[in-house]
């Protein structure tokens, strides 16, 4: 073979590469325009969106109260926006995934002129790690109870200035002054819910009232699931055995481990990700479940019911926090106050199907919301509250992870 053939082979190939590069160029060029639209001029392009809250975003029944009071078009800053002089242009917000109707963020932007960039986490630990790393850039963070305690003990939070949050007066005293933040120095409640047991009512002759439906006679072997959560699963096993939900003794954990390993053969899985869809589609007929999740499953399958078993369940609460190194604490205060407005709170709760800590919200919630709550059995009565406990985390609770490691090791 001669040199010339080699080199011409080269050209053929170069051409081919050029074609591929051209494709990449086209793609990046096309997307480049997109970028300019979405980031550089974010306020401009996003402005039209809020006028009609994206209906498919909210699987919940359509919201009655919110869009009735759009602000006057030429007056961008309403009375709910704090001091315009101190208000920033934009704010970074770290929230639980899928935990707010994004229409709320659009409304805040339209009403107050602050664009909200929301990122999401799927575990409190992730949020703690990000804030702990420093300069996360988030001015407002939402995490669950125990994480507040951990973050405040490590000086990762700044005290809230209640003077800037007048709507704090709307909050249910029952949900204030929690164990993890006595006196609400660092946090205010966002939403709360419970962990219990969801099932398809048509699968049972007599609806279950106890964890025995999973841990003992399990009539639905192969059609039930437990959460993928060391504290919830082991806690349920512990209370079923008569211990405290937060028990840390080795003997109790040995017993609980045995119980869980036995149940493991019968459950389809330890599942926090797919069980809502599974309940809705009938893939599983009973599942340890977050309260709000049972409500979401009910939307697709009205046979879903939710109980707190006789042995007990947990209550948990998600909270607003402002990190110590937040770039814009003032705007964060304003956004917290905004989300504590009754109409906004109603939008949020219609979406999450959790419980609102805001006393002015319940009258604004739609019939659809109440139909889901009563249909599923999510009403939080005093009798049920008495059976609920908070999960506590401290150094000694690391025994839960040790026990759970053995569940993981089992298969």
């Amino acid at each position: 073979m001669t040199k010339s053939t080699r080199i011409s082979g080269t050209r053929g190939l170069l051409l081919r590469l050029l074609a591929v590069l051209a494709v990449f160029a086209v793609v990046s060029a096309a997307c480049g325009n997109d970028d300019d639209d979405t980031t550089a001029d974010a306020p401009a392009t996003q402005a039209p969106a809020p006028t009609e809250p994206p209906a498919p975003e909210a699987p919940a029944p359509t919201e009655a109260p919110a869009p009735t009071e759009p602000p006057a078009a030429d007056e961008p800053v309403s009375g709910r926006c704090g001091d315009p002089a101190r208000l920033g242009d934009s704010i970074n917000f770290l929230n639980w995934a899928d935990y707010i109707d994004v229409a709320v963020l659009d409304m805040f932007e339209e009403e107050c002129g602050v664009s909200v960039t929301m990122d999401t986490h799927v575990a409190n630990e992730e949020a703690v790690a990000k804030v702990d790393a420093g300069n996360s850039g988030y001015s407002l963070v939402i995490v669950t109870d125990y994480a507040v305690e951990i973050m405040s003990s490590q000086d990762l939070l700044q005290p809230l200035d209640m003077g800037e949050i007048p709507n704090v007066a709307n909050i249910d005293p029952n949900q204030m002054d929690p164990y993890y933040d006595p006196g609400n120095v660092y946090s205010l409640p966002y939403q709360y819910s419970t962990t219990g047991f969801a099932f398809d009512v048509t699968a049972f002759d007599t609806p279950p009232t106890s964890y025995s439906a999973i841990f003992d006679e399990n009539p639905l072997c192969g059609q039930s699931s437990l959460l993928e959560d060391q504290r919830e699963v082991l806690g349920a096993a512990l209370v079923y055995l008569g211990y405290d939900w937060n028990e840390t003794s080795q003997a109790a954990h040995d017993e609980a481990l045995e119980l869980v390993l036995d149940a493991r053969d019968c459950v389809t899985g330890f599942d926090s990700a797919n069980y809502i869809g599974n309940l809705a589609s009938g893939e599983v007929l009973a599942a340890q479940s977050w309260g709000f999740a049972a409500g979401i499953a009910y939307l697709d399958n009205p046979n879903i019911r939710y109980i707190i078993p006789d042995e007990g369940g947990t209550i948990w609460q998600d909270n607003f926090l402002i990190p110590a190194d937040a770039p814009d604490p003032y705007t964060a205060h304003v956004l917290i106050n905004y989300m504590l407005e009754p109409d906004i709170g109603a939008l949020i709760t219609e979406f999450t199907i959790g419980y609102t800590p805001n006393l002015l919200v319940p009258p604004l919630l739609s019939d659809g919301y109440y139909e889901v709550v009563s249909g599923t059995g999510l009403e939080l009565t005093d009798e049920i509250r008495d059976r609920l406990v908070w999960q506590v985390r401290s150094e000694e609770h690391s025994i839960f992870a040790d026990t759970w490691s053995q569940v993981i090791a089992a298969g």
Partner: protein
Amino acid sequence: MMAEPTAPTTAADPSSTRPPARRRVAPLLAPGLLWIAVAYVVPGLLVVVYSFLTPKLGGGVVWEATLDSWDQIVAKGRRSTAGWGTVGAAVLRGAAAVAVASVPAVAAARYLGRRISASLALAALFGGLVAVNHLASEYNNYTAVFARSVVWSVLATVICIGLALPLAVFISSRRSPVTKNALLIAVMIPFWTSMLVRTYAIRFLFANTGPLNNLLESLGLDRIVFLNTRFAVILGLVYTALPFMILPLYAATERVDRAQMEAARDLGARPPQVFADVFLPMVKPGLIVGGVMVFVLSVSQYLVPTLLGGGKTNMIANLLELQFGEAFNWPLGAAIAALFSVVTLASLYVTVGRRDQEQFL
């Protein structure tokens, strides 16, 4: 960058152009190496250091040295049933595996005209691995997860080779380069849609109430539990990693010398002999590179065991996620990770071998 004299006269002495070694290597090497070093070596060392520190509630570490994490793995991880009986059972299993494996190994060696001692050595190696696997699975909770991850990943690698080999041969035997490229691109395109969404689609297909089981039922068969089993996880591993076998293997088959295979055949070699003695050695680089990539991608997979294993079939990443996540025990996670890296490297050395690693990796 490559300041090579262009004077053609030097060609007279081949040794003067021959050692490319003389040329400056730094400009070629430095950028990539530095980049990787910054992103991996420093954090990697950090992991080793962390494994000797004290956990901090909320994640991270307290800078107080301790051996707790290692003690936890060795002492607390040990199963209550572990003892000399476990060791004995492992030895017995290994011996049984040697006995069982040597029959087909000897038969294959006879058929292919290879040395019998070599295939017996292979059978012995297999038996040894079986024994090690049994010991790891039964003796200690942590090594049980290691062993499982390694065995499943090896299985996934073998399946990937089985699926990719015919495909690579098929594509490389197309005549038109357009067809070849089209077929290759067709391998890649599905992987540009989100893997999570595709995994979700797999869940739907294999669900107890899904189309596959409905089909089984309509055929009068029993429904089978696919999801959250080893089957589902290994299927997911194969699905995720298969392109990483196909591409290098294709590049290798593209270079297969057909004349040699013809010659071997004309000299009376049987097809399996041609395959084993002529074809396989020629595609070996592709097999090794593809195999290593599939193995390492599989062994540390997080999403597949999480989404398709449903918490009932866990791999090493699930254990790590627990420690770095909910457990707030970074030192233990770091110790597990450090130990696991050693296991991964050891598995690679055992299967690929030092010489091939030097040569191909």
